[in-house]
């Protein structure tokens, strides 16, 4: 296989556990701050 035939490298996707952790962080931060704005405004 020549160098030109080699397929381009794809960025790796995070592992499942890390993705779950990420979703938990994203949900808690966005949802929490939105709920705070609704129930405890300035």
């Amino acid at each position, binding site marked *: 296989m*020549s*160098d*030109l*035939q*080699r*397929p*381009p*490298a794809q*960025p790796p*996707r*995070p592992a499942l556990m*890390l*993705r779950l*952790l*990420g*979703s*938990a*962080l*994203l*949900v*808690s*931060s*966005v*949802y929490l*701050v*939105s*709920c*705070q*704005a*609704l129930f*405890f*405004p*300035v």
Partner: protein
Amino acid sequence: MTMPPKPPRDVRLNELLPLVRSMVAGTSAYAPLMKIPHTALRALVQGAQETQPRVQPPPLLAGALLWVLPTPLLFAAMIALGTGHLDRFLADAAGLGLFMAGAWLTRRGIRAAYVRQQPRFARLWRWPLKTLGGLATALGVGVTAAFSVGQGPAISLAFAAVAALGFHLTYGFESLGRPRAFWSGDERLRKVADALAEAEGRLLDLEQTAAAMANPELKARVLRISAQGRGILEQIADRPTDLYRARKFLNVYLEGVQQVAEGYARTHRLADSRELEQNFRNVLVTVEQVFEEQRQKLLRTDVLDLDVQIEVLKKQLDREGIA
């Protein structure tokens, strides 16, 4: 005689193909029930395979979370407006706007990664939509925490950082700048790579021009030419020495067809003329022939080289008294 079970009614084309294949091969339990000639079935299978999209559609709900999560902020903004707190309403609306922009950009980024034809050789600058979506989401969290909830700058920043980290782990930020498709210290190979990247850039431009064309026949012709061009590029990538043989194709015809297609698209918008359409069609037919000839020429060289190699091997075997 026991009848075979009825095939399920609700099957997708992809699931149906193996079944039809087994019928064609005569190994299926349904084969005796088939009254359709095998040649027609084969054509059906082949046609279905050709029409199957090469790229998968993106998951329907990918990125949907970002639209749903800030819903309480919408109610907060409406309540602030109802109770006459303009400053609170503006803060909530700004946060909500950032969240919506983030969700939209992320969805576009996810879809683009699925649908877009990935360039094989070219390194093109593209907006990192998912990254921008992540930044908008993090900024939205920071702005809401600071101005709607009244947190201090440190806490707001911490909120934004947590959201950015969560976004990165869930959707992943795109890397800025595409890496080279391959790396080579060889000067000759690098030249080939640059030529291929430039040629693919032209093909991508050509496809973009074709997408804007109203005439389906001319559009199909241009897309076919582009597919032929890609085939030739693949051939050159397989054997970089072909570049020198295909240089005229890369420099003259590819650039020519791109300019003519752009010219047609531009002029056609201003004046709808049959003559112009016919002229453009003639050019496309010629280009299609030239591209096919070019491909055949490269293939013939392959065969010729193989003949020479076989001849050399035969002579070597003769000389060593093996044959």
